[in-house]
């Protein structure tokens, strides 16, 4: 009986302490915690139905959202002040006029704007020619690929023949760029320092994609060869990482094999003592 009473006392004394330990040892909680968007454009428009809310939905899926390029970068205004967010005094532009679109995009994509303005497309600006958003879209802007050059889109204004030549000349290089991008992404997702390679590929991709804006088929062929050389250099760097990985796996075989061998030896020794 004494023992049982003692056990009860222990139980009560420990209960409080253990409950506290128990609670503190459960540090995980409900999954999705939204801090709320700090950008007033998004917090206001994001909740609106139809035309006013739609751009936010589209933008969230865009490459701009992925790179923290928010509404004010194109439309101006003050994203930190709900009252004056759309004040012209704070640089609010609203929807840019058609002829102003290349200038808006060109604030960041400087080289592309220059190539575009010198091309047949740019020369037709304001006269029925396409602007940036005609091919790339406005709010749902995704990473540019050669798929943008397609018969359906091009034939909306002119024949596809010249565009087809440009696309075919770029096809192989584009494939290389895409596959290298995937390899770099994969290594990045494993903690490999890929900054230099990313910047290199970014630069190559930009100069390559700018070819599609000047619409000169011969130049595209010429430049593609030069770009391939730069891509080979990036490919060599990726090959070195592959090689390093192989060496690590080989070391792994030795270490794991050694540990298993040691386990076997210890086990046999133990049996000899038994």
């Amino acid at each position, binding site marked *: 009986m004494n023992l049982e009473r003692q056990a009860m006392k222990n139980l009560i004394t420990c209960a409080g302490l253990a409950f506290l*330990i128990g609670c503190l040892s459960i*540090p995980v*909680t409900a*999954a999705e915690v*939204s801090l709320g968007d700090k950008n007033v454009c998004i917090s206001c428009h994001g909740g609106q139905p139809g035309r006013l809310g739609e751009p936010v939905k589209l933008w969230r899926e865009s490459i701009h959202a992925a790179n923290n390029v928010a509404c004010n970068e194109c439309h101006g205004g003050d994203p930190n002040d709900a009252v004056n967010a759309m004040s012209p005094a704070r640089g609010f532009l609203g929807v840019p006029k058609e002829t102003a679109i290349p200038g808006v995009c060109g604030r960041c994509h400087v080289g592309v704007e220059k190539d575009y303005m010198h091309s047949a497309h740019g020369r037709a600006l304001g006269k029925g020619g396409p602007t940036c958003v005609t091919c790339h879209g406005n709010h749902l802007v995704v990473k540019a690929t050669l798929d943008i050059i397609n018969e359906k889109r091009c034939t909306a204004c002119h024949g596809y023949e010249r565009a087809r030549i440009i696309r075919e000349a770029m096809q192989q290089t584009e494939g290389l760029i895409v596959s290298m991008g995937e390899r770099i992404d994969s290594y990045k*997702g494993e903690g490999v320092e890929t900054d230099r390679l990313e910047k290199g590929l970014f630069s190559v991709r930009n100069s390559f994609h700018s070819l599609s804006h000047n619409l000169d088929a011969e130049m595209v062929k010429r430049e593609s060869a030069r770009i391939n050389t730069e891509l080979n250099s990036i490919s060599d760097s990726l090959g070195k990482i592959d090689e390093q990985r192989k060496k690590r796996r080989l070391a792994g*075989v030795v270490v794991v094999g050694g540990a298993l061998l040691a*386990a076997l030896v210890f086990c046999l020794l*133990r049996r000899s003592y038994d």
Partner: protein
Amino acid sequence: MLFLKRIYEWAEVRLGVRELVEKNLTGYLLPRNINFWYSMGSILLFIFVTQVITGILLLVYYLPEAEKAYTSIGAIMNAVPFGWLIRTCHVVGSNMMVLFVFLHMLSVLFMGSYKSPRELNWITGFVLFTLVQGLCLTGYLLPWSQLSFWATTVATNSVGAIPLIGEFLVEFLRGGKLVGAPTLGRFYTLHIAVFPLLIAIVVGAHLFFLERIGVSTPPFGQGDTRNRWQGDAFRYEGHPGGIPFFPNYLLQDMTSIAIYFALFAAVVFFSPNLFFTKDAFVQANPFQTPAHIKPEWYFLANYQTLKLFPNEFIGLSIQGAAMTFLALLPFIDRGKEKHPLKRPLFMVCAVGGILLYIGLSIWGHYS
């Protein structure tokens, strides 16, 4: 050999080494039916030592500042010679530590080794279990990645569900309203100084209790599987005619440690990113919430439990009650029987609990 013998004799006349060896190694007898599950403690000690060593090596290059932490981890992984190996060992080791704490606890549960007079061993073991979780949680923030940042935001948020003092506790843990540089400073201190020190102290207490009470007899391979403790006076549970710790059981420990090391090395070399997601390699950005934040595998069941209840406090309370029940099990389960197959109620609860835990973890992973 002569030189070694002379050193031994030198130490013998000063420290009584022969008696020490006789008492703690060759004369320290263990039950004849002891099994490999008794090696879990040794494996855990090995892991703890490995974690301390790799942790110290990481400290050489790690910079505990919000602006520099992520870059320093990148440098360790990519520029420091064998830095990738040291960090991967530390990360994999932390997960292995939790896994083997679970296995150790399960073996103690199923063999009834928590029963009297080993309540203090169980309690200290349980405290170690919570400390290891705390150690892992605080270490999680240190790389200052998106995963670290948001997992810590979510984890510290949960404390806010405690009535009255919740908000205060959240701010106390974070050192501010949001996770930031002060949180990193706090977690860093806890991770490299407070938790390791506490763990070392509690491990010492755990081993002291083991030394005083003696190793429990496994309930397998013998007729009477009941607990023989009388409860009227202190008695060391000796095992006359048992096997000596040295060399017999030490070799079993070494075998288990070598097998563990093979498993550990296999993960380190062949699947080093097993415990990482892509967000672990993106610098923390307080303004960009990742799409899916999932806790580490050992917190998935807790995570899913909290999601099942509409009120976070209810979820926390239920888990707190479950943890309390587990901590106080030796005081609740007073039965003499130790063999798991002769304890049907225990078996139903234990197997049900394990299946529930695994089920909730899988659910949490895919939810």
